[in-house]
């Protein structure tokens, strides 16, 4: 590939810059198999929307395997509510297709308009509706993978954890059979909350309501940037008519929510983290973040926060990770480890990941230098 065009595939939404040996965009399984058997190091790329550098090639020795052209939607089983699709299918394209049958894939990351299903499985994407629909792997029946020897194999639910959430270190996800949910009519309410303790109690109460499918939190700073009053805010989405905002107004509010990350990035807050903590520890973490003037939003319903660090504040990230661990939280709730968070992975977790890597990718071919 032309060296100028290659540059395009050496970057992702994390804004990390790497260097690739080459870029390939296969259109079928046989091509992928051939590439795998003929290539030493492969970095798998979906939509390139990751915030941890998971698809950034390194050292000039990685071949980028761009899965965007593997985008066929094949078998829909309306009765069993399942669909077989290729890894490069874009989530919103899938939703458009499914809406004709009154069905949907309910996991919805903010980047739903461009994100690929393969990328969602590889990072075990969570998204805004995790409170009700949990994560991507909960909606997978089986996946088809290619291992480092070029062997095509199916993996069922029991072996799924070797691939989902492993960020591509164990093999190339080619196809998947997804479980589907009936399409819902949704509404939303924007709540203004005065203090962090009240946020916790309101969220606790909302979580008991089975119609609530999303609870999103914005701190005062983010609220101000979005044009709301300078208070804490919660977007609460309902799968019935309980929400005050319906139809166009509902869609407008959700579209505003999807714009937050790029919006804060433009203000210089380019490093967005994703710690996950229990709700009763939320106030402690938030108070620390506020003491450092770090704007924060997140999927409070499932305890995932997105503190936004500017260049100067990046020095606080390791301090925050220590605090998250002290609060019995996880360093990454949904973005994955990629390159950026490798240093924060606990030794025990690292050992588990290394074992999976050795078992599934004995030739050490896929996404080398990522996660572990």
């Amino acid at each position, binding site marked *: 590939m*032309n060296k*100028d*065009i290659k*540059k*395009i*595939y050496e*970057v*992702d*939404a994390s*804004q990390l810059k790497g260097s690739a040996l080459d870029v390939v*965009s296969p259109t079928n399984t046989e091509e992928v198999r051939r590439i795998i058997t003929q290539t030493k190091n492969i970095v798998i*790329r979906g*939509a*390139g*929307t990751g915030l941890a550098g998971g698809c950034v090639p390194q050292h000039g020795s990685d071949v980028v395997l*761009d899965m*965007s*052209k593997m*985008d066929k939607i094949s078998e829909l089983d309306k009765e069993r509510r399942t669909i077989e699709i290729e890894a*490069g299918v*874009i989530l*919103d394209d899938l939703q458009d297709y499914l809406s004709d049958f009154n069905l949907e894939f309910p996991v919805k990351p903010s*980047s739903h*308009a*461009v994100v690929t299903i393969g990328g969602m499985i590889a990072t075990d994407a969570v998204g805004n509706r995790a409170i009700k629909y949990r994560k991507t792997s909960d909606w997978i029946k089986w996946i088809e993978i290619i291992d480092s020897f070029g062997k095509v194999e199916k993996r069922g639910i029991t072996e799924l954890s070797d691939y989902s959430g492993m960020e591509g270190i164990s093999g190339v996800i080619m196809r998947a059979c997804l479980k589907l949910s009936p399409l819902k009519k949704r509404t939303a309410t924007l709540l203004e909350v005065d203090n962090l303790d009240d946020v916790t109690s309101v969220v606790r109460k909302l979580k008991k309501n089975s119609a609530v499918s999303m609870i999103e939190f914005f701190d005062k700073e983010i609220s101000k940037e979005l044009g709301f009053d300078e208070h804490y805010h919660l977007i609460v989405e309902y799968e019935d008519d309980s929400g005050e905002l319906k139809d166009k107004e509902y869609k407008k509010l959700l579209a505003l929510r999807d*714009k937050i*990350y*790029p*919006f804060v*990035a*433009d203000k210089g807050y*380019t490093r967005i983290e994703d710690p996950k903590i229990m709700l009763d520890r939320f106030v402690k973490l938030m108070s620390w973040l506020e003491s450092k003037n770090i704007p924060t939003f997140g999927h409070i319903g499932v305890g995932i926060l997105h503190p936004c660090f500017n260049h100067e504040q990046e020095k606080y990230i390791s301090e925050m990770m220590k605090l998250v661990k002290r609060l019995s939280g996880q360093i990454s709730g949904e973005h994955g480890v990629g390159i950026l968070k490798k240093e924060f992975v606990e030794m025990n977790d690292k050992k588990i990941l290394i074992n999976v890597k050795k078992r599934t990718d004995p030739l050490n071919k896929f996404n080398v230098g990522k996660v572990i």
Partner: protein
Amino acid sequence: MEKHKISEADRIEASNLMEEASDILDSCIKCGMCKSLCPVFKTLKEERVSARGKAIILSDKIMNKVVFECTLCKGCEQKCPLGIKVCDAIRKAREAMVLKGKGLKSNEEMIDNIRKTGNPFGKNIGNDPEKLYCC
């Protein structure tokens, strides 16, 4: 083949245009949301044709023919959370490339055809050379 001679004025103008294109795209945060409404990406499924792709190379002031693979529909601008005027940058880059003799041969042929026959394909389908005749 005759080599395209570039005047000093054109060289400076091209350089200024590339600088302007680079400035417009410099604030791109590489989120990739531009791809969601891009008809060229939707058809080809190649990151290189996305606005993010073009921003990456134009930020480095690289002249590449990929800037001609754009319909200038502004779909990317609608989706860009920062409202970057991508199409303005692409127009400037195209102009710079034409000034440097790096435009598309097919475009030059089309312009020649229109001048000679009033038709982009060079077909003599009209009688008035001042008018533009469609295919």
